[in-house]
């Protein structure tokens, strides 16, 4: 959007896993010229208080995000597929472990 030459390095998105067994969660971004430094910068910025045990860094430009204008098309068709949820089914009275 502007012609300013960027001297602040490319943007990377950062995902941190807080403890074993749970998914990595997006926490924010950092700037870095390469993946090693992206990792170090993410560590220094997002785990200063032992917030994580694992970090992913991804070049921001590699992320493909859905367009909000497509939300109807993308997400609403699944609203009426109630049969995908276990509560949809009526089980015989007294049946267990199912």
């Amino acid at each position, binding site marked *: *959007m*502007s012609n*300013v*030459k*960027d*001297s*602040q*390095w490319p*943007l990377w998105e950062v995902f941190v896993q807080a403890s074993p067994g749970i998914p990595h969660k997006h*926490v*924010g*971004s*950092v*700037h870095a*010229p*390469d993946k090693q*430094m992206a990792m170090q910068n993410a560590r220094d*910025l997002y785990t*200063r*208080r032992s917030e994580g045990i694992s970090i992913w860094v991804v070049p921001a430009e590699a992320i493909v*995000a*859905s*367009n*909000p204008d497509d939300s109807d098309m993308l997400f609403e068709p699944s609203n009426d597929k109630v049969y995908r949820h276990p509560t949809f089914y009526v089980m015989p009275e007294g049946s267990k472990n199912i």
Partner: protein
Amino acid sequence: MENEKQLEQFEAKINADSKIEPKDWMPEDYRKHLIRQISQHAHSEIIGMQPEGNWITRSPSLRAKLILLAKIQDEAGHGLYLYSSCETLGISREELIEQLHTGKAKYSTIFNYPVLTWADVGAIGWLVDGAAIVNQISLQRTSYGPYSRAMVRICKEESFHQRQGYEIMGKLAKGTAEQKEMAQDAINRLWWPTLMMFGPHDADSAHTGKAMKWKIKRETNDELRQRFIDKTVQQAEIIGLTVPDPELKWNAEKNKYDHGKIDWEEFKRVVNGDGPCNKKRMDNHLKAHNEGAWVREAATAYAAKQVKEEVVG
């Protein structure tokens, strides 16, 4: 009209207290207001490192040094969270920094006051961070998703900052006569500039209307300032320091403190560049930015070579 329909949907979302996310449609004014507010907030964190940074090498104990260093480092981190969330609005950090350098973007006027003694370091933590926290807690509920998430993270981390400052002030107030004098002198000089941090009175604030309507801000300048005064006066009393406002008085009817008049002429002067340290703060920032250019370029050049090798190899 597509735009009107979009605006309607946007305002419906705001009214339902739903968050606006980067790819959602938003009015240009909303985007502009956010960029102005978030970048001012980010620049304040970064410029705000300088006044306290003066005292890292002169901290009076190893414990105090570690705490101060960690606190200033947090501020760098908070600046980054905020730049990060501002960048989701389609503006680069380079542009934001350029706006700071050209004076188009502002930062909090409080950082244009000198930090002369160790007590000033305490007063900054206690008063300035205390004021910032009042504002930031309120902003956790801002309507823009990335800004709100940055605020939640910042509030979690900032809670120790104010305690650090209050602890320093408490120790000084209980210390030798010289130390107590140092503490009172700090609050005398920094009290009024701290009250100015919340910005002009609501009636005189150019940006409050839309910012409140779109829930960028959730409470007005005067509401936040009042909350800060009400909690801080009591804290000062506990450690035996006096707030330098002869007109300060508890108003039992309104259940809040009445306070004296803020010198808005001084505020305007400092906002517009004529504060004690405006030039120094900006010169320092520019110097670091310019002296770091060759380092940033070297890292970029090296990264480009590595990518080339990967492709070729």
